[in-house]
């Protein structure tokens, strides 16, 4: 269950981004997860929900994009993409391939709610009178 540790890293990173950019709220986090990253999306989503509860990211959702394995053959040069976990060139069958994609565990984007339609905006206190 390393998904809990990974969810915590995502949470920490998003909080840092949110504060650095002075955002009121973040309601979605886009992830790119390679087929070789050994992360279970359901377990990750569950862990993330638990961590976000009662925090300034309460209600924030994950949008997980699965990234296929991308190989470049060292022999014939073919670049190929597969959802299977195989390290053989589909063209010449050679096992000597470079992995160009599939190990990703990246935060691609964060999404900020529409300022006019969110609860966060409605509940925001009016600016203090000066």
């Amino acid at each position, binding site marked *: 269950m390393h998904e809990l540790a990974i969810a915590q890293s995502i949470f920490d990173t998003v909080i840092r981004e949110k504060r650095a950019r002075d955002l009121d709220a973040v309601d979605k986090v886009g992830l790119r997860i390679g087929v070789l990253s050994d992360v279970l999306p359901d377990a990750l989503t569950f862990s993330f929900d638990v961590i976000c509860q009662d925090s300034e990211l309460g209600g924030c959702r994950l949008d997980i994009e699965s990234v296929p394995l991308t190989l470049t053959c060292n022999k014939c040069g073919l670049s190929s993409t597969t959802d299977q976990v195989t*390290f053989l060139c589909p063209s010449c069958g050679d096992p000597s391939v470079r992995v160009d994609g599939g190990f990703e565990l990246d*935060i691609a984007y964060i999404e900020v709610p529409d300022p006019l339609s969110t609860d966060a905006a409605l509940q925001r206190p009016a600016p203090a009178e000066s």
Partner: protein
Amino acid sequence: MAEKIEVKKKVLSENDRLAADIRTSLKEREIVALNFVSSPGSGKTSLLERTLEALGSELRIAMIAGDVQTENDADRLVRAGGERVKPLVTGGSCHLDARMITGVLSDMDIEDVELLIIENVGNLVCPSGFDLGEDMKVVLISTTEGDDKPLKYPAMFRRSSVMVINKVDLLGTSDFDVETVRRNALSINPDLKIFEVSCRSGFGLDAWYAWLRELVSERTPAALVES
């Protein structure tokens, strides 16, 4: 409309950063670092015990014994003659991470160490993405496990540089086939260096020790030339 803000950050960037610091500080001291990974019970601690018994007086070896709950493995390594052994109890975490290693190294005297071996938590999934600053991962598989393990845990076998097939004294008592496991592992990672050993009978261990000696000696001359 909701607004999307591009971030493009690695989730484990903080761990990667700490691991890079560890790698730099080990390199400065010319320390070779290995990260041992396997399922529980494949024989990581046993191989480290044999290694200490055989090389402990010849090489300056430090070990960090990761475990979820106990310090038993570290105690075994001390009994095997280890002079620089630290337990690393994760208290539940299924993998070691770079922060834990930084913490242990900070109260370890590694100045003159030549070889650092980290025994990770017994698990072929969770530790694979967490860089500890090692030079290479060594993955163990024993003959009492399935010979299709490399296919079931491809990320770990792809990220490892060495595979040790342990418990060959038990070959023939199960369906485990050495040729099959070699073929499966090499289909995931054709660059794997493979050893076949028995920590019980001692079979194959001389080749393992010779490789470790070579690994260490390839390191140190660079320091001598430089200074």
